[in-house]
C-alpha cells in the first residue's frame, strides 16, 4: 500500500478509509472457476508453482456469488455466451471482467465462424484485455495486476461499490 500513509508511532499509522478498503480488496481477488476453451489450461498453469497467483490472494471460487473477478478464458460461442451473461449477473458488485486470449477479445482465430461470438465485450463489459493465443501465465498475472491498479483508483466508500464500467452504464449511456 502506497500513498496516503503517515506513520505516527511504531504501532499505528494514519491513512484514508478508501486506501485501506481497496488494499484489502486487491489482496483478495477471488476469480470465478470456469474456462470456455484451451486458455483455461493456461489459467490452471497460472495457479501453478511458477506463476503462483495464490500469492497475491487470488484463489478460485466455484460459485459466482463469491467471486469478484471473471476471467473469460477461451472461445465464446453463442450458446455459451448466454450462460456467461447469466454468470456475470449472478456475481456480486463490484465485479471485474478480464478477457483472456484472442478468442475472448475479438473472436480470434474463429472470428469467421458461424457459431462464435466476436469478442466477449459484445455481451458484458470488459476491464482488462490480455492478448495472446494463449497468453503466457506471466501475461495473465500482468492482467490481474492491472485489475489491482483499477481497484486502487476507486473511491469505494463514495460510490458504495458501484462502478462506472457497470452493465447499466453500458446499456443506458446511449
Amino acid at each position, binding site marked *: 500500500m502506497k500513498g496516503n500513509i503517515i506513520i505516527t508511532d511504531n504501532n499505528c499509522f494514519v491513512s484514508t478509509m478508501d486506501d485501506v478498503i481497496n488494499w484489502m480488496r486487491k489482496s483478495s481477488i477471488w476469480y470465478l472457476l470456469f474456462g470456455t476453451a484451451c486458455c483455461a489450461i493456461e489459467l490452471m498453469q497460472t495457479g501453478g508453482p511458477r506463476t503462483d497467483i495464490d500469492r497475491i490472494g487470488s484463489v478460485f471460487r466455484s460459485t459466482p456469488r463469491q467471486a469478484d473477478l471473471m476471467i473469460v478464458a477461451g472461445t465464446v460461442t453463442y450458446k455459451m455466451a448466454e450462460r456467461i451473461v447469466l454468470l456475470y449477473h449472478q456475481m456480486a458488485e463490484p465485479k471485474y471482467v478480464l478477457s483472456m486470449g484472442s478468442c475472448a477479445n475479438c473472436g480470434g482465430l474463429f472470428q469467421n465462424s*458461424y*457459431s462464435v461470438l466476436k*469478442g466477449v465485450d459484445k*455481451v458484458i463489459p470488459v476491464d482488462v484485455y490480455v492478448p495472446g493465443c494463449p497468453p503466457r501465465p506471466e501475461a495473465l498475472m500482468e492482467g490481474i495486476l492491472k485489475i489491482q491498479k483499477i481497484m486502487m483508483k476507486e473511491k469505494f466508500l463514495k460510490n458504495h461499490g458501484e462502478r462506472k464500467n457497470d452493465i447499466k452504464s453500458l446499456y443506458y449511456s446511449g
Partner: protein
Amino acid sequence: MISKVYTILVDRFGEDALLYFDDTLNPYIQVNPEQIQMLCIFMRYNPALKFSFFFSLCGVDYPEKNQITMVYHLFSMKQKKMCVLKTSVSRKNPELESIESVWKAAGWFERELYDLLGVNFTNHSNMKRLLLPDDWVGHPLRKDYEEPSFYHDMETSRNRIS
C-alpha cells in the same frame, strides 16, 4: 482389396445399384440412396465382409450438382481393411434412411449432419440438433448459408451496426 468387397456386393445387390471408383486415393463405392440400410446390414453381418466398426459419416455439399453426398467410412476388424461408401441425395429435400439400427454410433453422426447440413434421416430415434442451439435458423455448413446479423440480440460481426 476393396474390389473384392465390390464383387461380393455386386453378387448380392446387382450391378446397376453399385458403382466402383478407384481413381482416387481411397477407392470408394457409389451406392443407391434407397439401398443404404440393406447394404450396411449386409456389410456388417456377412461372414466374408464383417465390417463391424463404423469409422465416420460426413456430408459434402455440392450446390452446382444440386446434391449432398454422404461419405461412410467402414472398417473390418476381420479383414483389417477400410471401405468407403458414398451416396448422394437431392439438395432440396434431402432424406435418407438412418443406419442407427446397424451401428448405434452412427446416430450421433446423423444428428450432426442434420444439424449442419439439414439432411433428414428417417427412422432415427432422436432427430434433433446436436451441437447448435435448438432455435438456430438454417444449416451453416451449406455453401449458400448466410449468417444473420443478430442472434438473440448479440451482434454476429465485429463491425458496429448503426
